[in-house]
């Protein structure tokens, strides 16, 4: 499977967002400053936004899903249970995943933003997808929720996962790293070698690299392991 962007561009005010390259199977982290174009890439990858220039090719991808940055905008059910059903997944299991057992009859808008985010991620990640696009999945989640969502994402490694995030501390193990330079998406490479080329790398990774140690990956365990290597 492959999602290929060929000379793709989208005009946003006075500048263009530009993307070229292929997303392959595994977890692809997309990093970038505010307004660089992460959500635009997510929308194009999910097929809900057409580029102004260039073309996007989906090779071997039959099913795809986008997890919105703002889950409030994608609600369709008037109860939590209806919302879960709308994704075609089993309500009891998904509610348990989201720590919302017993709240199936609640209005989804009565949930806190973090609870709603976790519900929407539980719905999206309850089913297999060839292409899974996660736009800001960690936003509003508490640290325990982030760790749990990391585990869910890591189980989707057989799909093409595009993970657009600002998160710095709690991340899943990733396979490939992409980063926006201004508004152009650049492939930094495969992990771990790509970590040394990551401009927006978390402080922990930059500190380790500055002390001569390249972490094997970006998860909390990998960072701890690399720190232990230095301490001996």
């Amino acid at each position, binding site marked *: 499977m492959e999602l290929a962007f060929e000379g793709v561009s989208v005009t*946003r*005010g*006075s500048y263009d967002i530009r993307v070229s390259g292929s997303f392959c199977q595994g977890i692809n982290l997309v990093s*970038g*400053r*505010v*307004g*660089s*174009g*992460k*959500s*635009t890439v997510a929308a194009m990858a999910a097929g809900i936004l057409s580029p102004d220039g260039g073309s996007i090719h989906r090779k071997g991808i039959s099913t795809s899903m986008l997890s919105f*940055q*703002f889950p*409030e905008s994608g609600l369709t059910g008037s109860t939590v249970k209806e919302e879960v059903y709308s994704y075609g997944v089993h309500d009891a299991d998904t509610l348990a995943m989201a720590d919302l057992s017993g709240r199936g009859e609640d209005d989804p808008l009565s*949930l*806190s*933003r*973090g*609870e709603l985010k*976790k519900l929407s991620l539980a719905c999206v990640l309850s089913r297999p997808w060839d292409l899974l696009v996660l736009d*800001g999945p960690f*936003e*509003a*989640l*508490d*640290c*325990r*929720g*982030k*760790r749990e969502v990391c585990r869910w994402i890591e189980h989707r490694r057989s799909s093409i996962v595009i993970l657009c995030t*600002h998160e*710095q*501390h*709690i991340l899943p193990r990733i396979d490939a790293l992409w980063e926006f330079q201004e508004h152009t998406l650049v492939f930094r490479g495969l992990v771990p070698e790509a970590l040394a080329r990551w401009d*927006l790398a*978390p*402080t*922990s990774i930059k*500190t380790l690299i500055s*002390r001569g140690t390249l972490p094997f990956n970006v998860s909390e365990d990998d960072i701890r392991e690399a*720190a232990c290597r*230095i*301490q001996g």
Partner: protein
Amino acid sequence: MIIIRGVRHGIIDIPSCAIPEGHTAVIGPNGSGKSTLLRIIAGLEEPVRGCITIGEQSPGESAVGWVHEVPGQNSLFTRVRDEITSPLRFRHLSCDEITSRAAEVAAQTGISSLMDRELATLSGGEQVLVALATAMISKPDILVLDEWDSHLDAPSSAMLQNQLNTGGVRTILQCTQNMDLAASADTIVFLTKGRVKATGTPLDVFGKCIDTCYYPPSWRWREWNLRSKG
């Protein structure tokens, strides 16, 4: 000083709590009542029981700037410049004053280049910056920020936090899941299930959760650096 007495509202159940002037971070697990507490303090909701005073005033009488956790939720206009200047236009300030204040707040929040854009074309993070500029333009006494930082990259949130801390707003109250950002506050209020689990300085509060994921990552790194350098 914000005084909370016998407040019950939704999940919130706080017999008493005093929040001093300065920068306060409200932290806690998802669903612990952080946003509800901020909404009551901002005067957007009246508590079912109890009362809150800000100095001598009720929240509704205070000059409060509010940034919603879902940016764009409170927007009234489609163009950034119109949205940001709206609080001053509604108060019939002079055009010169509005223009000058808008330029100042746009520079502070780093959105000068976005002033003529449509809000709908902005990214989530950019929409947060617009909401923040709109809240700051009328120089409120209190700025209440409901997890504004979760949509921002680390350099932007650090830069803006610095602007906020030195921007002359007497009281900043913000909830966040970024414990490094919380650690830069003067006061922490840690909520669980609607109750205050701990309150005090970052050292007081985080000192009690050293073995949890709420301990600020930058503090762990600082300690690790000290240990590893012997």
